[in-house]
């Protein structure tokens, strides 16, 4: 990866990690202050059926949605690195490795869609 690409990657990762930790700390603090038990938090987590429900909970500063968003922001960081690498390979006109990056992205997406019954 070019040094310019590395600099952008580092900055994005720093922002994502900081945002994730702030959201997690905020959510945890709300859990402690509101004296929410694990069972109650699990119930609130089960009620988060969609991204819209998650974002609505975040807007209301509810603890479980804040924690879930913090986890989601962190979980997306490797995918962002993959995306930046894909852009970098495309900029270098390295079609083979751009295709390999895209293939890995598709495999990861498939992993998120799989569910055992």
């Amino acid at each position, binding site marked *: 990866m070019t040094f310019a690409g590395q600099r952008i990657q580092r900055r994005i990762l720093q922002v994502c990690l900081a945002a994730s930790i702030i959201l997690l700390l905020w959510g945890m603090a709300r859990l*402690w202050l509101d004296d929410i038990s*694990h069972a109650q938090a699990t119930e609130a987590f089960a009620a988060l059926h969609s991204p819209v429900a998650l974002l609505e909970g975040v807007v209301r500063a509810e603890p479980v949605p804040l924690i879930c968003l913090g*986890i989601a922001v962190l*979980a997306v960081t490797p995918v962002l690195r993959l995306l930046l690498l894909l852009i970098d390979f495309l900029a270098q006109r390295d079609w083979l490795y751009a295709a390999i*990056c895209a293939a890995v992205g598709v495999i990861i997406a498939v992993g998120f869609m799989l569910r*055992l019954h």
Partner: protein
Amino acid sequence: MEALLLAETGSLLDRSPLAFDLIVVLGAAVAGCFGALVGLGGGILVTPMLVLICGVEMHTAMGASLLAVIATSSGAAATRSRDTLSNYRVGMFLEVAATIGAIVGALLAALANPAWLQLLFGCLLVSIAASTWRTREDTATHRLPVHPISKRLRLDASYETRAGPVRYHIQRPLQGFGVMTGAGVISGLLGIGSGVLKVVAMDSMMKMPFRVSTTTSNFMIGLTAVASVGVYMAQGFVDPMVTAPVLIGIVPGAMIGARLVTVLKVSLLRRIFLVALIIIAVQMFIRGGGRIVGA
């Protein structure tokens, strides 16, 4: 013994959430710091800590550990000012295999008995302790022949040293691809980054210089972990209340460890850490074996 009793009587999180959070934040910080110091990543200590000390269910602990792997991988990349070592072509070529393996491993984990997973985890800890006992040095790989597939895939590269750039030629790319599928399966099955196995495959089998292998592996473990995390989330193995304190502790812990590595004498710490791994492995054997015998 107290830890074992705790685990048998239910999760500490259910009985005392504040105590759970404090123990896990501190434990994850220590795991992240030690992991960064000895180059193993912190995820390998997170699962035993959650299972043995806090009584968390094995699958949930593995889900939290996978997210800890992502945190340490991204955290290391966020602190590194310039990366002249990572070979992204090799990393992406091998990630095709590792991500497929990780999804297969995560699906197997969903079907597996937690007691057997604990036994497997114990075996893994012993093998990691054995393979990392000896510190490796960079091998002279520039004199090796050019492999036709590596040439075709443009995997060969060079890295900067004080004496100038050193060129290396990647050997046995297809065998490395195969081993990486196995590393992915283990990552998904046991909720770890499999960084040690990846480094061994790239360093010993593919003859990639050790330092290049470790930095490339650090990039790869995040992607492998995120492939498994999708399956773990879908199966309900990611509990935000367990994962949050792990992440809050492990990110600063890993960053502190990455800075201390240049100051502290790591060789003694490494020995202590590996002995600790063996002790944890024995506890995992006792707990997993006890459940299987008792069933």
